[in-house]
């Protein structure tokens, strides 16, 4: 097999993103500070272009690079989610990076590269591309986390994130190795080995042909899940999340919360449907406990947080739990998979929004992190406060918002299956808790008086963040009120995987 125009076309979204990344970096290289204002536009343009090319791929379920990638609905939808997260984050960053002195090309370059990684991960159809996708994404994100390198917190976050990340990479890789072993050791009977193609050994569908009771498969799957669970921050692999989210610059946090989840959950769904269809129950059972633990721990820990970013980090853990519930149920009903897609999209939007607000309010001194610092925001910046309230409501799952629809979709599926009812009820209980801490923020913004001399920076020069917030808010409401179309796409996407 050689790489042809066809492959490149299918691969174009990733290429566009990477190209834009290179352009951003080089543009920065060969230009003075003046043109730096153009970087966001470049990156935005690239992202939009990538999104468009993704859309152009909608409906054609084809494989590229000899099956290494599969461009189908799932890939497109999750890719779009990643692009959306990127676009929003770029918007949010525009003013932030300038105020914190990291407005150089590499920032956008890394962001776009990570996005490319996520998009590729969403398309990955063999273990190797899964691995590479995750790695590209992760490495870029490590760097982004530490990019404000004169802030101790930032570097420390990067350090922790990196150590744990590399650690988990080891597990993931070992898992892949064992899966590979499982394929080859059992493949002889199936006659794959005789096939000239080596790459086919690593394809996900090859795993589907491995007998379920192969020990190597079991171990490999376990370690593979460990790696994935780490990336999405599921308990007990979540420990890095709060630190990384708190330490990273706000726009980056929003970015990684969304993009990483989009990519990894896409991979999980794909492997669940393509690689381990025959392990549905076991897979579901294992994740069910992870999901429950994740929802509980995440929300309970968030309750006592006073640092907004950290609180949102824990809340994101909680949401991971909910999504995992969806994935668990997906092993039974395919609607659940669609629900997962929808939830990820909703999550991307509202998270980007809520971190966007932090970026918007950041100033030279740094970010507003402590909840008390948001006191009285509503009286100084009503629009921002309103938007934040919207996002909080959405995260808490209060209608009519995207978050509510997402929860509704996922718990709907969970409740449908008697054996997952307990998950749904756990989730509901957890979201009661979550309602409380999201409320704390609203209370602070609206019902407390601003601290002495607390000046919230004005929004004039922050067109990007403002625009981003606006878009996120609209999307949050729209997804909450008329989700029909998006849901259709998600269903179609899932159909296309099967």
């Amino acid at each position, binding site marked *: 097999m050689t790489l042809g125009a066809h492959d490149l076309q299918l691969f174009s979204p990733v290429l566009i993103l990477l190209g834009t990344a290179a352009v951003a970096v080089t543009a920065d290289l060969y230009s003075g500070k003046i043109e730096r204002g153009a970087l966001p536009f470049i990156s935005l343009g690239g992202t939009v272009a990538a999104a468009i090319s993704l859309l152009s791929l909608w409906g054609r379920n084809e494989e590229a690079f000899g099956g290494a990638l599969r461009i189908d609905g799932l890939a497109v939808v999750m890719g779009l989610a990643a692009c959306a997260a990127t676009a929003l984050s770029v918007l949010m960053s525009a003013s932030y990076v300038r105020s914190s002195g990291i407005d150089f090309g590499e920032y956008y370059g890394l962001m776009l590269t990570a996005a490319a990684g996520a998009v590729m991960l969403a398309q990955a159809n063999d273990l190797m591309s899964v691995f590479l996708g995750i790695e590209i994404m992760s490495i870029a994100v490590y760097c982004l986390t530490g990019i404000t390198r004169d802030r101790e917190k930032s570097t420390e976050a990067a350090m922790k994130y990196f150590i744990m990340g590399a650690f988990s990479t080891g597990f993931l890789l070992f898992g892949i190795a064992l899966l590979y072993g499982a394929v080859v050791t059992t493949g002889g009977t199936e006659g794959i080995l005789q096939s000239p193609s080596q790459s086919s050994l690593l394809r996900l569908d090859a795993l589907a042909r491995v007998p379920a009771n192969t020990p190597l498969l079991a171990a490999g799957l376990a370690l593979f899940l460990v790696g994935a669970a780490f990336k999405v921050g599921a308990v007990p692999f979540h420990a890095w999340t709060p630190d990384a989210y708190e330490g990273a610059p706000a726009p980056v946090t929003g970015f990684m919360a969304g993009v990483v989840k989009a990519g990894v959950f896409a991979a999980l769904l794909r492997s669940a449907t393509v690689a381990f269809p025959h392990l549905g129950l076991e897979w579901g059972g294992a994740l069910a406990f992870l999901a429950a633990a994740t929802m509980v721990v995440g929300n309970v820990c968030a309750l006592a947080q006073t640092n907004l970013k950290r609180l949102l980090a824990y809340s994101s853990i909680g949401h991971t739990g909910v999504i995992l519930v969806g994935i668990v149920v997906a092993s039974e009903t395919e609607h659940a998979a669609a629900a997962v897609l929808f939830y990820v999209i909703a999550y991307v939007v509202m998270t980007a929004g809520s971190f966007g607000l932090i970026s918007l309010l950041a100033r030279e001194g740094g970010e507003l992190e402590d909840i008390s610092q948001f006191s009285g925001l509503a009286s100084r910046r*009503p629009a921002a406060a309103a938007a934040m309230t919207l996002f909080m409501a959405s995260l808490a799952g209060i209608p009519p918002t995207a978050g*509510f629809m997402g929860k*509704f979709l996922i718990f709907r599926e969970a409740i*449908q299956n008697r054996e997952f*009812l307990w998950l749904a*009820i756990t989730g*509901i209980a957890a979201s*009661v808790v979550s309602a409380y801490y999201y409320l704390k923020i609203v209370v602070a913004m609206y*019902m407390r008086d601003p601290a002495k001399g607390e000046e919230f920076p004005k929004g004039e020069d922050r067109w990007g963040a403002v625009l981003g917030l606006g878009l996120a808010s609209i999307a949050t409401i729209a997804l909450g009120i008329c*989700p029909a179309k998006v849901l259709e796409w998600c269903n179609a996407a899932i159909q296309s995987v099967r």
Partner: protein
Amino acid sequence: MSAPILSALLVIPVAGAALVALLPRENAREAKLAALLTALLTFLVSIPLWTQFRPGNAAMQFVETRAWVPALGLTYKVGVDGISVLLVILTTLLMPICVLASWSITDRVKEYMAAFLILESAMIGSFVAQDLLLFYVFWEAMLIPMLLIIGVWGGRRRVYAALKFFLFTIVGSLPMFVAIIYLYFKSGAQTFDLETLRAALNPAGNEPLPLTVSAARWCFFAFALAFAVKVPIWPLHTWLPDAHVEAPTAGSVILAGVLLKMGTYGLLRFAIPLFPGTAAEFAPIMIVLAVIGVIYGSLMCLAQEDMKKLIAYSSVAHLGFCVLGMFVWNDKALSGSILQMVNHGISTGALFLCVGVLYERRHTRLLEDFGGIAKVMPWYAAVLIIVTLSSIGLPGTNGFIGEFLILLGTFQVKKLPAIFASTGVVLGAAYMLWMAQRVLFGRVTHEENEHLGDLRGREWATLLPLLVLIFAIGVAPNVFLNRVAPTVENYNRQIRAAIRHENERREAENRHRALMTPLEAPGPGDSRK
């Protein structure tokens, strides 16, 4: 149906809210005006609901159905019948009054008005929604605006009150959320459409009941909990006094006038029709709780020093009557309790307005800070007395009709509860007059009160419509009842039939099971799993 009146009612306030929000912050006055006009417009639009309503007709009217999310069985279906039409109009009527009553708000007027208008849409939505999930969406959508109204423009302990309100409600309603979804699947109807669900859950013929006894119990419990919190039914009522005390005047008016009705309305519209058998099974408990609410609430009033708290507790008592009237499935009682919902909205709303009048002048609500007000504010005194009388159900006022019908109807079915509840009427007289006396009569004890001005034009404008209604309903209740009655009769007929039928079916099933395998018969201790 000709014009989409209900949709208009849902859209106009939100649009108005958007308009208000877009106004620049400086001109608060324009914001108020815009809000007022929007509210009035909504009211005008809602008038056809009254005029074009076909009284003889028990079915849903002004129905609009559109696909919402077909994939999930969600439909946008709205309509009103005799039960809800009065409440919708009550809402649209109270809203301009609230806006007027909030004229003295100076802090963040835009947000205030916007919150109110959004709240109005949500409330109307919950009254007209005929799709369970649609209802749930509106139901929860009320939370945030109300939270802000209490928490931002409220009194000293407003944050506590707001949180309490929010958490009580959300803890109550999430189980309902689960139950709704559970029904969607277990009913086998695969829809959230209320009518279809009801039919599916109460099959007419001999096809098996979709829910097991325990499942039905859990679902009913989930629904009842959500609504019981809102009503509030004892002992879930403690959020109410705090919320009322802290909320701004208009907030209290809306809270008492409409929000609490959500609970009773929900019981009536959803909890009972969906699970008639279970409702009948739990009716004794509900009745007992209602009676406790009546007496307990009245007693509480005797212990209060804060006027708003007193009135809040009186709400507990009044709504106890409403709940009592719902669980006997007697036409008179039910008509009474529906009317009583409206009455309570009017009387208690007016009471809160009266308190607000004093509060604006003296910035206190403690009874001990007043006395002899009748001397300085005679008209105010007259109004307060009238409202008080209507609240204690004096004949000739609206309160009498409601309470009398409820008690009369209940007595036909259940003697003791009716008798005990009737004592609430005596206590009611005791505490309300006690309040009125301590505020109005005696000598003027505080010199600050010497020169309080009497009611102003704006305050008249807020109170007059309510006064008119108080007597209108009291003297000519038929005008209102004949819109309610057909629905009520039809409703009770259905429910009673359903109860009978379901009980027979369960009997049969149990006998059958007992014959088959004695062990599998579901006992009351059946758990959720």
